[in-house]
């Protein structure tokens, strides 16, 4: 595969250039592309997982570290059959008023449960995955948090991953 054809396979060619243009001096300095995997089965047969930077976590679990100046590189598993009332948000860096009234606006767990119940997707992984987006060490982010979540997603037999920033 040529570099040109690889670039055309990107969900959004030029993404990193756009980010760096808009946020000069920001943490992102990547110039490489992101390989995408094609879905090899109908959506209705595929098991979906959800990955979010919203800082959503089950009540009673160790709160995300929102005070550390360089960030928190851990993630929490959120049971995909959880109710919004079982969950809470620990995050300071985005407006949470709306999400505290209806968690689905930032972490659409009930919408995804409904999609699975209606058969639009083949099912949900047992866990969804959540972390906070305030992480200033991009190398650590890639080497630890991203890899840890990727391993967990694979172990959970996910066939589609829906990623949503907060």
């Amino acid at each position, binding site marked *: 595969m040529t570099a040109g054809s690889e670039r055309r396979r990107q969900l959004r060619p030029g993404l990193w250039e756009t980010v760096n243009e808009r946020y000069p001096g920001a943490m992102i*300095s990547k110039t490489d592309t992101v390989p995408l995997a094609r879905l090899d089965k109908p959506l209705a047969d595929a098991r979906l997982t959800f990955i979010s930077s919203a800082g959503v976590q089950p009540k009673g679990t160790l*709160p995300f570290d929102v005070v550390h*100046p360089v960030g928190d590189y851990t993630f929490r598993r959120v049971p995909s059959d959880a109710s919004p009332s079982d969950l809470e*948000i620990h995050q300071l860096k*985005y407006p*949470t008023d709306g999400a505290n009234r209806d968690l689905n606006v930032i972490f659409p767990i009930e919408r995804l449960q409904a999609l699975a119940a209606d058969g639009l997707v083949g099912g949900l992984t047992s866990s969804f995955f959540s972390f906070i987006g305030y992480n200033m060490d991009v190398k650590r982010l890639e080497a630890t948090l991203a890899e840890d979540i990727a391993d967990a997603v694979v172990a959970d037999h996910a066939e589609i991953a829906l990623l949503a920033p907060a």
Partner: protein
Amino acid sequence: MSLDYLNDAVARGDNEALIRYVRLHVGDGDDQQGRTEIDKAWVQALKVLLDVPPTDRQFIVDTLANKDQATLAHLFFSLHFHLVNASGEWIHDGRL
């Protein structure tokens, strides 16, 4: 700002860049608000000590003597947000 930016600032002794980063962190991206937040935490700490209430001095002595500098620095940031929260003037949208 990236960690590389901060490490470069440390290497060249640019403390203004470092404290500005702290102000942006505690001020949710607003430099001037960060100054206000830092002042707010100190004022709150002073207020609760004005009546000279009993405090666990032994805990403080033991903590400072026995905990590593990274844990103490982490505690310092935690105390900042805790005191600001206790002041009742919470600018942040989320919670600790």
